[in-house]
């Protein structure tokens, strides 16, 4: 085999390995080296070394182990060199002695633990919320700073700053690189699920095609959900994954060719992704069977009821209201109260729903939530109260931030006047 062909083969293999394995290699290197930056440099060095040596020596039997080993050696070498110059060699030696690495002793379970360690660390509640999102997208999903910036509609400098601050906090406040203890797992898992769902809704909301070259955040979130499901059999995990799949299934039907928002009851259901719906429904059943299900599983169940209705008219609103009753008990938030009110309006008529919405707003809740006012407007509209509907649509317009939603509200307002 000629040298260039060999190099080509190696490069392709390395590309494939990098795509599939680099995040896992990184997760393990972070544990072994005790530092995010060091681990990233080590990964880079290891890949460079592989480019050089594999064409010569052949592709190793366990490429991942090779990369980890090589990365670790290079990093330790580099740190020793720096430490020798700074005179702090002893401390470095002490640090690395704590984490031996013998590829022969390696096992898959250990590796999976490292990926969990990485996810839980990136989503640690002691990190600011936006930093958790950026760090997770960077370290767990492997997105570049630019890709993240484009996806969440902010500048690369802002993203970079968030990531640096997060890594600094991890280092300076000594956030440990571990999987939380069983008694802490439920609340820590909450934080992870929150980050994943935030990433998903960023992608979901930004579906107006503003940036055609951005990374598909919703796909990343679903990928993260699948990874978590593989690693951790807790009931809210299939619940969240189901919710994301069932919402994602409707993506093609949500926005018209002109970029207008199409509500659920007007969507062309033939555009819904049946595979995702099927998978989502199976996961909902799995989550609900476990008895320890929570808000994500319940929201997914509601989405499943919608998904199973062949037409909007055929929607089983009674079941949806029942699910909202349970959801509200489990998660008594005003937003859920609002969504339940909308469902009650569908089951019992707009007046019944309006009563609840008015109660929420007069309490002072959701005053700055555009959907609360949009819902109030819609219910008044259905009851023929043009004046009240107009007031609420106008209020909603002062609060709405996404273009498709804004157009929708403006259209409704126009219809009222016309």
């Amino acid at each position, binding site marked *: 085999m000629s040298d260039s062909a060999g190099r080509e083969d190696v490069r392709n293999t390395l590309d494939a390995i990098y795509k599939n394995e680099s995040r896992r290699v990184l997760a393990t290197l972070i544990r072994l080296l005790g530092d995010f930056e060091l681990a990233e440099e080590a990964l880079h060095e290891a890949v460079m070394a592989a480019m050089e040596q594999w064409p010569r020596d052949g592709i190793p039997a366990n490429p991942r182990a090779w990369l980890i080993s090589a990365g670790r050696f290079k990093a330790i070498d580099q740190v020793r060199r720096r430490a020798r110059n700074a*005179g*702090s060699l*002893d*401390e470095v030696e002490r640090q690395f002695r704590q984490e031996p690495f013998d590829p022969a002793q390696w096992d898959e379970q250990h590796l999976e633990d490292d990926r969990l360690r990485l996810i839980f660390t990136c989503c640690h509640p*002691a990190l600011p919320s936006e930093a958790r999102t950026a760090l997770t997208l960077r370290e767990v999903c492997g997105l570049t700073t630019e890709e993240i910036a484009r996806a969440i509609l902010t500048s690369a400098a802002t993203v970079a700053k968030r990531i640096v601050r997060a890594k600094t906090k991890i280092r*300076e406040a000594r*956030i440990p690189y*571990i999987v939380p203890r069983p008694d802490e797992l439920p609340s820590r898992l909450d934080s992870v699920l929150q980050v994943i769902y935030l990433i998903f809704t960023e992608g979901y909301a930004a579906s107006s095609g503003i940036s055609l070259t951005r990374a598909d955040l919703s796909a990343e979130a679903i990928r993260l959900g699948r990874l978590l499901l593989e690693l951790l059999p807790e009931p809210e995990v299939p619940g969240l994954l189901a919710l994301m799949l069932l919402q994602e299934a409707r993506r093609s039907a949500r926005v018209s060719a002109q970029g207008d928002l199409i509500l659920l009851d007007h969507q062309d259901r033939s555009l819904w992704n049946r595979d995702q719906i099927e998978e989502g429904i199976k996961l909902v059943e799995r989550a609900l069977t476990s008895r320890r299900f929570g808000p994500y599983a319940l929201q997914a169940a509601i989405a499943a009821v919608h998904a199973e209705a062949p037409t909007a008219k055929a929607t089983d609103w009674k079941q949806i209201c029942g699910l909202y009753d349970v959801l509200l008990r489990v998660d008594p938030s005003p937003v859920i109260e609002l969504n339940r009110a909308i469902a009650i309006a569908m089951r019992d008529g707009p007046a019944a729903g309006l009563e609840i919405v008015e109660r929420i707003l007069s309490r002072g809740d959701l005053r700055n939530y555009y959907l609360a006012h949009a819902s109030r407007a819609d219910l008044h509209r259905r009851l023929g109260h043009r004046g009240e509907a107009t007031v609420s649509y106008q209020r909603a317009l002062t609060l709405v931030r996404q273009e498709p939603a804004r157009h929708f509200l403006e259209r409704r307002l126009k219809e009222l006047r016309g």
Partner: protein
Amino acid sequence: MKYLCLVFYDEKKRNGLSDQESQALIDESLDFDEALRREGYLIAAGPLQPVETATTVRVRGGNVSVTDGPFAETNEQIAGFVLIETQDLNEAIRVASRIPPVRLGGVEVRPMQDRVHSKEGNSH
């Protein structure tokens, strides 16, 4: 690693406790300090007297100014502190969440800095 746990609460809440509840909280706090000592976490701890006993000292250009009151007027005031030594932040959080008066307000957990005097030069 050393962490300083600064306990904050609204003094009105503390004052709203009955004599019985107040003594119970004191007993609980003292027992807690003892437990931390046994567990090897405690370096120092103690409650502060109410914020009305506070005095703030400032120095500007060599001039010392003394004023009555806390450094900053806040809705919740510093009520006490616990200085601990733990392995990592997770452990510090676990300890901090056990501090009895925290349930009246909250606690800030911040790592202490290491400092090296210029006279010490290169360590080791």
